[in-house]
């Protein structure tokens, strides 16, 4: 388990650190230490030093990881629920309903997603809710397609016909026969959606469209680090490394799950 799933173990360690560090550290992510602005690493109680206005780097890194993962998991769950509901309905009902629903999915795929999000930000102002909406808008599309395909394949299987002959009502067939049989594939795609959302959220934040100061996320930290990298490269390297490790590990684990179930 430890050696075979070590990417998963690394992800869990990062999550645990992000959750536990605020309890263990004397500094919070928005607290300014006026005596130690731009402190180097290992100075006093600041393990990785402080940024250009004196906030503890480690505390901010933990907070950023928390926000990024929170957005990612929430958006992935939303995409899971919407995607399964949409895809299962289209696949189960079939015919014209299926055609119309899947053309809507195709249409949404074709929208320039970044442009829409920037437009929303300009009109409604920056908020974490809009980040959710923007990301949720695109990430369920793949899930809906995958689930629809699975449901259409399952619908032809004799055990579904046997259930119909046994008098099982359609809703029960969907709930008890179809959904349990697509759960594995859906879970695998959920694992693959999380790193995608991390990526999108970080990108939005890097552009300055994500969460608002003093709240932070990995994307914002990378941006701040990049602005300041000629002075202290640590500010870019730390969040960058966490981001890369998270993405790689989640993707490896997700691909492995997908191979197992499909």
């Amino acid at each position, binding site marked *: 388990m430890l050696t075979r799933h070590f990417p998963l173990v690394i992800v869990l360690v990062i999550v645990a650190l992000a959750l536990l560090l605020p309890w263990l550290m004397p500094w919070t992510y928005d607290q300014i230490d006026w005596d130690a602005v731009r402190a180097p690493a290992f100075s006093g109680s600041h393990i990785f030093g402080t940024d250009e206005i004196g906030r503890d780097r480690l505390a901010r890194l933990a907070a950023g990881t928390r926000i990024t993962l929170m957005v990612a998991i929430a958006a992935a769950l939303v995409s899971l629920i919407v995607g399964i509901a949409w895809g299962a309905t289209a696949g189960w009902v079939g*015919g014209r309903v299926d*055609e119309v629903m899947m053309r809507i999915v195709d249409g949404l795929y074709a929208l320039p997603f970044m442009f829409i999000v920037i437009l929303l930000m300009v009109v409604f102002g920056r908020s974490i809710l809009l980040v959710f909406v923007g990301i949720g808008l695109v990430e369920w599309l793949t899930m809906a397609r995958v689930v629809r395909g699975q449901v259409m394949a399952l619908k032809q*299987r*004799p*055990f579904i*016909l*046997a*259930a*119909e*002959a*046994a*008098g*099982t*009502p*359609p809703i029960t067939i969907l709930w008890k*026969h179809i959904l*349990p*049989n697509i759960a594995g594939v859906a879970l695998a795609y959920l694992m693959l959606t999380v790193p995608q959302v991390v990526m999108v959220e970080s990108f939005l934040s890097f552009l300055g469209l994500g969460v608002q100061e003093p709240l932070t996320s990995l994307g914002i930290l990378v941006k701040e680090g990049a602005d300041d990298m000629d002075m202290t490269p640590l500010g870019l390297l730390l969040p960058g490394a966490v981001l890369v490790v998270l993405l790689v590990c989640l993707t490896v684990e997700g691909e492995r799950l997908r191979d197992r179930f499909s």
Partner: protein
Amino acid sequence: MSLYEIRDLAVDIAGNRLVDKVSLAVDAGQCTAIIGASGSGKSLTCLTPFGLTPGVASGLIRLDGIDLASADVGQLSDARRKLAGFVFQQPLTALTPHLTVGAQLQEATMQAGSARPTRAELVRQLERVGLSRPDERLDQFPHRLSGGERQRVMIAAAIAHGPRLLIADEPTSALDASLRAEIMTLLDQLRAEQGLAMLLVSHDLASVEGHADQLVVMDKGRVVESGPAADIIANPAEEYTRRLIAATPRLDEPAPELSQPGDILLGTRDVAVEFQRPGWRRGRISAVVDASITVRQGESLALVGGSGSGKSTLGRAIAGIGPVTQGKILWQASALPQRRNRTLEMRRSIQPVFQDPVASLDPQWTVIDIVTEPLRNLRPDLDRAECNDSARQALSDVDLPEEFLTRMPASLSGGQAQRVAIARAMIASPQLLVLDEATSALDPLVGAEILALLARLQRENGLSLLFITHDIAAARRLCHRIAVMDDGCIVETGDIQAVIDHPRHPATQRLVAAS
């Protein structure tokens, strides 16, 4: 000396010895057939010497004087390319979907190092395997061809480079009975014309009988019996061979004793089923046209036809799990509505059993949940304990021990899974079972057991059966009457023995001749 000879062949995969002490020989112009149930190691025996399985072969393997067991990779691939040709079971998956028939034939011809064939040569190759309009076929893709046509193309490709040995691994198992006979006749013809040696693998004794010169019967990776085919079939020496021969239905075996049928239970009157063409395309496809059949109380009706004749569609319409476009389905005197409009009482009287036993059980459910599913819906008056008691009874009715109740479908063999499916169909005490090719996917021994089980259930419960199949000999073991379907129409009905003795319609004649 034989062209191809195997002595004391053993095949190991990952340290497990799956085939042991197998010896056989094939002479030029002769056919040797290996017969055995699935998992008996017959395909491993044929394909491993040519490096086509993950197994490791040891023993003496000699093809045209070359020792394949000690051959290096180059010699092996030489033997594979030049001396041997292969025909596989699934004609669709064995042809490359994105290459035209002509391109695949060209590749097959050039594999032995000969020059690029001209178009006229390719046309001749297709003519040789009896394909109509060969010039047009060369530019078609495999999905445009029917199953029988694809298998002819496979055979043309397998002999295109002039091999000495043709290895055919279940060449007819995916085809229906009349096509099966056509392909076997073609293989016989080619063998005689070209002096090919043929090694044939099949699970079905009936399909090789009359075509094979030598017979090798295999079970559990070992040879049970081998010798001239006619001798073995006439005088089997081993118990296993005797059981295999007894299990294979034939038209000349004594007629079974069947119970006397009662009143008319089910009738269809001019039932038609049409399907919308897929996608946005306009137009409809007629699967069943004006079909009228009757089934009496305690009677078995065989619904026989080739693949694509509409027999399954009609069966599904009757079982209430498929659409009906026109016509009426009558149950005793009242009309049955279609699909979801049927009441639970109507559902209880008709239950289906399907061809693929593994796919007809939900892989996520335990056997007890699968078997009690109809009861939970159709008999809301029963509580949980009564349901479980019925499940135990149903399982013992199909000769399965009680500990199967907690098993998952993945841990069942094909025959056990089919028994579970029959238990599920029987648990709500139906009056009519619709059996859609219920024995076709099973090995002959297992299929014969399921046929005997169905006959017993019918006798004991006064059950009516609609037995949908392409195998007229299997139907004869169980059925009183027969209805033959061709191209969506019922073309002939009558007493099964009378129809077999005097088939009138060409489709019936083809089916009878093929059995």
